[in-house]
């Protein structure tokens, strides 16, 4: 059976440790984690609350810094980048989707999608609006493009957030509990979008505590007490 990914991992974590200073006893959220994720993979990170799964995805996106260890994404040593370089790198390389959508409340849906292109200057000005509208078409929100986020349902906001994450056409989408705040029907629709992105050779890393969804990803990593304690590969679904 041919491998579904190239030989070079797009995400490589080595001996990754994260310790939080809580003011009382230090709390170790990640304990020497090693992980490789390959291009085109749909990876689910599963675990209970406080297990370290969000910390793990924050390390991959550069949203948080490791206490020790290495994070290399797309050949870039993320752990060594400063905040400014990280922002630029993240804008082009990783699309981030949050549980609570995190759309900017004073920008319309279209403007929220345009914003990453604006920050990273990734497309010529004249191409940005057509591209953003195309992304919104893909998430079936073109008719909501000029509305403010507060007027949209949770599912619509999350679809807008996915469109925003795709704005700069990043190779990796990192989603932290993207369906955690949605009803099952909407969650299914959002998950379907991720599946379509995987078909377009995007790498999806998704944190979830939903075992049903976890069972549908290509590769499920079970995190407990700051360690990856189990890894399951679900070939049949993605093999078709």
């Amino acid at each position, binding site marked *: 059976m041919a491998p579904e990914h190239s030989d070079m991992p797009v995400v490589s974590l080595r001996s990754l440790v994260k310790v939080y200073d809580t*003011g009382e006893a230090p709390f170790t959220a990640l304990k020497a984690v090693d992980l490789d994720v390959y291009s085109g993979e749909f990876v689910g990170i599963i675990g209970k609350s406080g297990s370290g799964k969000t910390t793990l995805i*924050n390390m991959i*996106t*550069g*949203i*948080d*810094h490791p206490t020790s260890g290495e994070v290399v994404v797309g050949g870039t040593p993320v752990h060594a980048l400063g*905040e*400014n370089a990280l*922002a*630029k790198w*993240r*804008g*082009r390389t990783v*699309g*981030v989707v*949050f549980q609570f959508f*995190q*759309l*900017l*409340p*004073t*920008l319309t849906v279209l*403007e*929220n999608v*345009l*914003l*990453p292109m*604006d*920050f*990273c200057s990734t497309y010529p000005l004249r191409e940005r609006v057509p591209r953003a509208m195309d992304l919104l078409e893909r998430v079936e929100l073109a008719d909501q493009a000029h509305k403010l986020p*507060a007027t949209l349902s949770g599912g619509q906001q999350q679809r807008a957030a996915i469109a*925003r*994450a795709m*704005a*700069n056409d990043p190779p990796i989408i990192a989603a932290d509990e993207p369906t955690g705040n949605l009803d099952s029907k909407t969650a299914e629709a959002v998950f379907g979008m991720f599946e379509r992105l995987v078909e377009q050779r995007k790498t999806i890393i998704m944190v979830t505590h939903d075992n049903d969804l976890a069972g549908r990803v290509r590769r499920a990593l079970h995190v407990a007490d700051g360690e990856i304690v189990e890894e399951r590969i679900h070939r049949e679904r993605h093999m078709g």
Partner: protein
Amino acid sequence: MSPRWRKVVRDLSLHWFRTVLVVLSIVIGIFAVGVMLGGREILLREFDADHAASIPANVTYRTDDFGDDLVARAGDEPWVSAAQARRSATFRYRRDGADEKRTITLEAFREFDDISVAKVVPAGKDGWPPANGEVVLESSALQVTGYAVGDVLSVERADGEIVELTVAGFAHDINSMPAQFAGYETGYVSFETMTSLGESDSYNRLSLTLADEGISWAAASRFAIDLRERLFEPEGLRVYHTEVPEPGSHFLGDIFSALSLLLVALGGLSLGLSAFLVINTVSSLMAQQVRQVGIMKSIGGSARQLEWLYVVMVGIYGVLAVAIGLPATAAGTRWFTDFAAEILNFRVASYTTPAWVVVVEVAVGLAVPLLAAAVPIRRGTRMSVVTALNATGVGGKHFGHTVVDRALGMIRGLPRPVALSLRNTFLRKGRLALTLSTLVLASGVVMAVWSVQASIERTISDLETWWNYDAEVDFAVPLDAASVEAAVEDVDGVAASETWPVFGATVVHADGSENESFVIVGLDPDTDFVGPTLVEGRWLTGEGPDGIVINTDARDSEPSFSVGSTVTLRVLGQERSWPIVGVVRGQMGGPAIYCDAGLMAEAAGIPGVTRLLVRGEDSDAESEQALLTDVEERLSEAGLQASATRTRADLAGQLREWLGILVAFLVLMAALIATVGVIGLTGTMSINVMESTREIGVMRATGAQHGAIYRIYVTEGATVGAIAWFFGALASYPLSTTLVRALEGAIGMPLTYAFSWSGVFTWLALMLAISSAASLAPAFRASRVSVRDAIAYE
């Protein structure tokens, strides 16, 4: 427009309430600083301009009657650039049948439209020049009472006959003492009218300007003496008084320096206050934006891009504030200048604010917010994404770790909403510190101003102890003491009377210059008609060869005056050296010298007394006036014509008018500063409550009703107000003592310091009311939001 700049515009327009608060905070800062500094500059400039345009006299002689030939000879003197003569005389009058008599000084010119020195400017064309039987009043008379054109003044001639004069108009004379301070009005009449009042058709006052504009006071004084000897004495004319003011000076100079000092001091404090206010508001704004910063960084926004975003946002606040603040400040300054000009009796030709003040206003509007925002913007945009996304505001997430938090946690038995309010107050310690800094400073200044006002009031009370009599009557010519005392001894209500010789005194300097600013009062050293407050040295003893005692006004107007020094005085033409043995506090009535009447008679010979003091049985203002009316009538019957009269209430009233200017300005400025503080508090409480919208949603979801939510936030506001009041009260003591000491220096008179406890407690009540109200409005707004929206609030 790119999305990030659209975000700036939307943040400004969609959060319009916050935008209004921030802009208003900056506007009030611009306004306070601009009005105080601009007002000060315009007042000083316009007063100087009005004074200079009047061509003030360098030398003024009060003399026996003289004619045009002497004026012409004075004008031909090479040192003299202009000579102007007038006749001046003081009368008693009644207005339109009023019971009370007042005093008026009338001045007559030959050519009203050609006054070359100490110009009088008509307020309009009506009534100018005054025709026979008409009088044009100096406009400060309007400050005393509402005179109107057509009013009739019944003026009493020296022989007791009444001449009716009609008020024909008003004129402005910056060189005339304003009526509210002088206790008498000034009016302008034709020579025809003057003669109808029993005066001669000649001059008795000559004013000169000197050709050398940069002449020193000493040189001007020597010239004045020389000219007096050459011009008047050969004609056998007596010169009663030679006035040589410090070139360019004005009799309101002390008040102006005090005002100027107050305006600078309070302008500086306003600047500090508005800076705190802006820092506070902008910090709050950044705290609200931290989560959005995290989002933008997570999708590729660099720290530099975000810094620019917020710099532009704060810049727009500044531009809006400047756009509103500059015209508002110009209007405020204009109002303030008019208010001051009316009180101080000068005309404002231009309201143009000096360029440097506009630069300061723009700096307050633009630079201060940007500087204030620099640190919070940098901190916010450099924060790691994870910290920013989890941010809860300034210091909000660490509650429970400090000693204060633990102490608050240990307080037991409080109702739950009160306990929550107390803990909420200390939840955002950074914000609390900033809010308190603004409020403590504002509270400190307001309470300090109250103490300065109390000190002025206490000083006035202290000064009133000088007058241990109820009325005084001045005579234009010296009279026999026994005749005067005999005339009033059986007037009903007179308990005691005393007569004083009061004459002009000239200090003769070794360099030949003279200072004629003084009156010398001869009295019985044991008199109980005055209660001197000694500032230095001792009072007169009446034993052996005694010296003189000067008042603080005299000490300040003559450099050679100090306790222990000996000065040469010329009184009634006789020179004698006197040791100065003491300094007493003056009543702002001008420089005075006190000596034993017996010694005065020995030194100069006394032709009679010029002042009668009467003590009555009752000391209220009405009784004093009734007593004075009876005394004046009896004197008139005895052929002893008074030239001026004052009750103790009048004297104290004049004092209050003088110092009241400072009080009026202090109150005005304190109100302005209090407004800055109140707007700051309202803004902060609004932002605090806005940030707590989510918590309000949670509380309502768990059953809290509107009333409970109001109580929580009103208690929080009141707690902040009470803390600010406490530290403000502590700060107000050093602030008020500093202000009082500085004012003493400016007005040249010691003030009695009084700490205003009533001000402190009034401010507590106001502070609690204001801080509660400041919280109530935003809490009301927040409580109207649905639970769902409140919980989802960003």
